[in-house]
């Protein structure tokens, strides 16, 4: 089964481990992630202005590319997912903006004769924008994931961290209950983990604030990490490169600020899925973590 895949910039740069592990897992589950032959940045943040369509052009352009490959597009990064899904909603539901954006797409095509095979077609919001977790649940099926598990992650206490972008705004994302989501927990249960329910699982990690105000990002992510540690999590899993960065990279700073702080590894959920599917750790790429996850996983005899 081939499914169109939009990786987004970060997964080709800082988050190669996320991209690699996701592709490996998909393959093990009989899914080929077909990367769009042409794609650009999604815009990274969904615009807050409502009277401009320029800002959603980047997102729509990628959707238009993807619509040539199939009726779905899968993405991994929470920001990309948020932007693509909301751009898609606009193109599906707002006839006036749809028409304007499509005018831009046509002009865009004319100015890019170089990539002839990728002329942009009018886009009507027909795609289903899926997050990789949704793909696992709805396309592959959790039961099939369960039967593909070769190493149940028994005894591993895993804290699932959702962050904000998957869940909010509620009416547009319709991903899960933004206050008490469970889709992530359900996946981890399928893998045999002990799921750690912690109240900070949907709090913001600080996001892009890390660029302007690192202190703020450290406080935000500290809240999350400490809350998971209090509930004795062995490991935290995320779905977003920026969340991973904030939770993982600031732990030395957290140790300076919090008495008795013990560090906890933060990995992508696809890496953990890979372990459960028995994929070689070399392919899961545990090299980019500030807090090394190998020891924890080895201790539980999972690697």
């Amino acid at each position, binding site marked *: 089964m081939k499914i169109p895949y939009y990786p987004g910039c970060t997964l080709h740069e800082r988050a190669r481990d996320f991209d690699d592990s996701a592709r490996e897992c998909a393959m093990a589950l009989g899914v080929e992630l077909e990367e769009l032959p042409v794609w650009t940045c999604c815009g990274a943040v969904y615009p807050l202005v409502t009277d401009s369509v320029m800002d959603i052009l980047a997102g729509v352009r990628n959707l238009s590319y993807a619509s040539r490959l199939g009726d779905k597009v899968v993405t991994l990064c929470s920001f990309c997912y948020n932007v693509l899904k909301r751009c898609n909603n606009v193109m599906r539901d707002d006839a006036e903006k749809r028409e304007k954006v499509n005018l831009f797409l046509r002009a865009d095509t004319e100015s890019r004769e170089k990539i002839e095979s990728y002329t942009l077609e009018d886009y009507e919001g027909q795609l289903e924008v899926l997050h990789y977790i949704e793909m696992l649940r709805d396309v592959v099926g959790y039961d099939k994931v369960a039967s593909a598990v070769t190493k149940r992650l028994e005894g591993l206490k895993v804290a699932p961290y959702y962050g904000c972008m998957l869940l909010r705004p*509620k009416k547009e994302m319709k991903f899960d209950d933004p206050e*008490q989501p469970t889709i992530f927990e359900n996946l981890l249960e399928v893998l045999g983990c002990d799921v750690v329910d912690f*109240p900070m699982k949907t709090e913001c990690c600080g996001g892009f604030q890390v660029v302007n105000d690192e202190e703020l990002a450290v406080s935000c992510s500290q809240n999350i990490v400490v809350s998971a540690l209090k509930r004795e999590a062995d490991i935290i899993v995320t779905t977003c490169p920026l969340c991973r960065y904030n939770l993982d990279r600031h732990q030395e700073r957290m140790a300076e600020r919090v008495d008795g702080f013990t560090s906890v590894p933060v990995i992508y959920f696809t890496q953990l899925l890979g372990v459960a599917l028995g994929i070689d750790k070399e392919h899961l790429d545990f090299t980019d973590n500030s807090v090394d996850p190998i020891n924890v996983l080895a201790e539980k005899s999972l690697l």
Partner: protein
Amino acid sequence: MGERIGVFVCHCGTNIAGVVDVKRVAEELADYPGVAYSTDYTYMCSDPGQNLVKDAIKKHKLTGVIVAACSPTLHEATFRRAGTAAGMNQYQVEIANIREQCSWVHRDNKEAATEKAIRTIKIMVEKARLDEALDPISVPMTPRALVVGGGIAGIQAALDIANAGHEVVLVEKSASIGGHMAQLSETFPTLDCSQCIMTPKMVEVAQHPKVKLMTYSEVDDVSGYVGNFKVRIRKKAAYVNRDVCTGCGLCIEKCPATTPSEFDEQLADRKAIYTPFPQAVPNKPVLDAEHCTYFLKDGKCGICAKVCPLDCIDYEQKDEFIDFEVGAIVVATGYDLYPIENLGEYGGGKYPDVVTSLQFERMLSASGPTGGEILRPSDGEVPKEVVFLTCCGSRDTESHLPYCSKICCMYLTKHAMLYKHNVHEGQAYVFYMDVRTGGKGYEEFYTRAAEEDDVLYIRGKVSKIFEEDGKVMVWGVDTLSGKKIEIAADMAVLGLATIPNQSAAKLANMLKIHADEWGFLSEAHPKLRPVESLTPGFYLAGSAQGPKDIPESVAQASAAASKVAALFAETEYHREPIIAVIDEDTCAGCRVCVSVCPYDAAEFDDEKKVARIKEAICEGCGVCIAACPSGSAQQKNLTDEQLYKMVSAALEV
């Protein structure tokens, strides 16, 4: 055609005559076909004006009257009375509105206004030429009322109707009357004990010779119309012969099966055979088969039957159906709380120390599961800090309900105050959006809580509640200081939104009465007919119609009761005959009218295979007339022929 129509053009002082050339209007109409007499006068509604109409009717032997004046809502009734006094049929008196719809809106164009007035009157002349003499519809009246719901509103309505001398059937779905009010501890703003003021009323209504009380019963079916309803009540199987039972309580004492008590809001258990609370009326148990060992384990138990000294237990008992004829129905089905599970942001339903407002009432109640002590559910400790949250689900257009639940500000103020009376050294916080104290003595009550009882009011919403180190962590904001607030509290009380009782939607559907988009029953007019449903014969009382506190519920119940008493004052019920009628000769029996009628007034006659309109119910809305493919449905005195003539006159064709 022998019509002799009289046209009476009113000046209304200068209101009409200042714009419209009334003389010219009267003169032009005098020559219009069918008009036998035409005149004008300064104030047609005055005594001399009315006499002028009456005299002209007699002198000119008029068959129809057009009064060209103000809106029919003002004086149609006046001139109909004048017409009747002069020997005319009142439905042949018509109003042409040349004030609100002409002179008032066309002040700057007198010529056109005069033309429009002339044409408006001509339209009405065309109508009047074909108006038939009609009689008001009379239907017999059964002077017995059904009251649905045994909370304070239902009890009050039943008592008032019964005290006016009419029979009442009071139906309550649970095992005892009393409703939510019986669950409450003390009531704002006087702090009198809810049970103490409630139980005498419960006893009074149960013992009233005119009231037939049916608890553990539900309305199964309703048919008929105002004055003539046929209702079927389903008396649920209680597995106890409650006529013989003395309420000794032995069966309850010995019953081995327990389940969380609805009355105690799941804070304590009750037995499978139970009375909801000690002061229940009637104070006789019912057996809940869903939780009974006998029913769950194929007859292995039967302890209650063994211990009952009067052999009241009957495991074979079945639901019983009882029919009544009633003339009016009061719907007082009350409210529920918005489900706490919907408040995921506050961990609703997940954390034991985040409780609902009704749970807190039970904790405060001397007859409650903690005997009036405030103890937190998780560990039974006395909470040192308690946070009260208003607007949990209310006034939230984004995620919950848009409306204000009205009572929460006040009951949370009461909660915080009673908590302070109970735990002197404790700290009570109330997060609020606005403190709404619209009621007698309410503002003073709030001031007392804030100033004398040191309840700390924080203006802002709580964003999140979670458990941490055995505490209930409350994250909020104080929008007055602009600061984030974090409170490590012992307990949080959610002022959950008021929603209509969840069984009310089904009932409203069965009764064919309207409800708003949230399920609250709709009144006929928001200001002038607040206790009646649009469907004749139905009256609304209490929170079923919208969130209400006790005094308002009682007032509305008494108002509904007085409407019922007024209805029952006549032995017949009279209504306007301007309704639909079906021509049986042309009706094809397609039943479109039956499917579109919003009042259930169109019915199908199986023998004649034609549709028929139930005169007593038809509101004359015209939906069936528009829908009828063969034109067989016609409105009396507003027939297609009349409309055609009126439109022709309007277009001057």
